[in-house]
């Protein structure tokens, strides 16, 4: 638990435990704790990036040397990102349950701060995977963007929604049996709006020069809804 473990704590006595003013500070502490742990083990990023690159290689091999249309390529890219995210992002909470640090974490931080901190970690993990996957995708499929800013906007907004949804679902699943197998089943139907909008937006970025994809509104609305639900229900999500 890093530096939190050194503090003398009682439930609600720590920043973010009961007063809203230090919520962001506690979320930052949770984020820093998880990043430190991840930098030591590199488990989440390594496992997720390896999964994503392997999936990308399989898809590229299956498509063959002739590439594919923009519609298909955009769908391939987001399918790989989605599966990799589902495989890796659930770790944020499952790890706490497996290491039996769940209760300690609940004692030192408010539910909202924990969710925000974990969301930040998942966002960072997802972004670091994409730094590898997107260039590899461009090289393997020989595809070029007609509008790079549009793609980056779609990528950032989709990441916000995707990581928020997976963080919320993994927080629920860490409290259930057989949590590993359920992540995909529970999360996929709920992230379909992100996936669909991201595919259409990416296809536009592949084919329409200078276009600003209108799908950004769907992605922004989705991210806003999921983050709002997370903040509103945080107490109930982690109420153990």
């Amino acid at each position, binding site marked *: 638990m890093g530096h939190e473990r050194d503090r003398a704590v009682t439930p609600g006595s720590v920043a973010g435990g009961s007063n809203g003013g230090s919520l962001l500070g506690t979320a930052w502490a949770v984020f820093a704790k998880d990043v430190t742990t991840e930098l030591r083990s590199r488990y989440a990023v390594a496992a997720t990036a390896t999964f994503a690159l392997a999936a990308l290689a399989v898809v590229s091999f299956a498509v063959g040397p002739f590439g594919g249309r923009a519609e298909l390529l955009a769908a391939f890219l987001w399918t790989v990102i989605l599966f990799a995210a589902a495989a890796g992002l659930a770790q944020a909470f499952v790890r706490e349950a497996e290491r039996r640090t769940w209760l300690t974490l609940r004692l030192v931080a408010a539910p909202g701060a924990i969710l925000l901190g974990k969301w930040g970690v998942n966002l960072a993990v997802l972004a670091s995977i994409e730094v590898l996957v997107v260039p590899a995708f461009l090289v393997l499929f020989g595809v070029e963007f007609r509008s790079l800013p549009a793609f980056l906007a779609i990528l950032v907004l989709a990441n916000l929604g995707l990581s928020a949804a997976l963080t919320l679902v993994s927080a629920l699943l860490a409290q259930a049996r057989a949590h590993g197998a359920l992540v995909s089943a529970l999360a996929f139907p709920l992230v379909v*709006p992100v996936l669909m909008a991201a595919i259409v937006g990416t296809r536009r970025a592949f084919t329409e020069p200078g276009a600003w994809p209108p799908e950004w509104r769907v992605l922004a609305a989705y991210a806003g809804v999921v983050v709002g639900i997370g903040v509103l229900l945080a107490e109930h999500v982690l109420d153990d």
Partner: protein
Amino acid sequence: MWWRWGLFLWMAVVTVAAFLYAPLAKKLYEQTRIIYWHIPVAWVTLVAFLVVGWQSWRYLVTRDLVADARAAVAMELGLLFCVLATVSGAIFSKGMWGSYWNWDPRQTSIFFLLLVYAAALTLRAAVEDPARRARLSAVYGLFAAAVTPLLLFVVPRLFFTLHPDPIVNSAGKLEMHPRMFQVFLASLVGFTGIFFWVYALDVRLRLHQLAREGAWTGSGKDRAA
């Protein structure tokens, strides 16, 4: 008891009227009949979802297992009606477009809604403690209820669709023969009635189970029933 017979008679009249009273729609030919079953069961799927959202919220506010039992029943019935909507939609698709399934955006939406229902029930099956199961299920139910409008109303508009316009189209006009609309509305009321009848029965059954397991003490009336 009388209203159950009333519901039976109502649905019998709707069934006869769908074949003998309502005219066929242009371009839809005999597939017109499916409208009187497909749209109402799709509507009930949505009603069930609203009930899930409302009862989930009630559970989180009150921590009353009765609200959880109601949400669970609505999930199960929602899944059943969602399957009916998907199958009747596939039959319509076969008649109109030549294939049962073509990933039309509206087919995709209803299919993923079916997955949401199935996922919610899977989550319930994965938690043993009743209070924890109720809490996790309620949070997932509310999360799903918040995201579903995007799934049902926004995503279909991102893609080209062969699906006919909704009953009240984007121009706000009702393009349906008055007789068709009468039968359609009657069917909508009938299916909604069937849903709430089965829902009430199932909730009573669920509460008896909870009482037998000792998780719920129940009211005097329920204990006597």
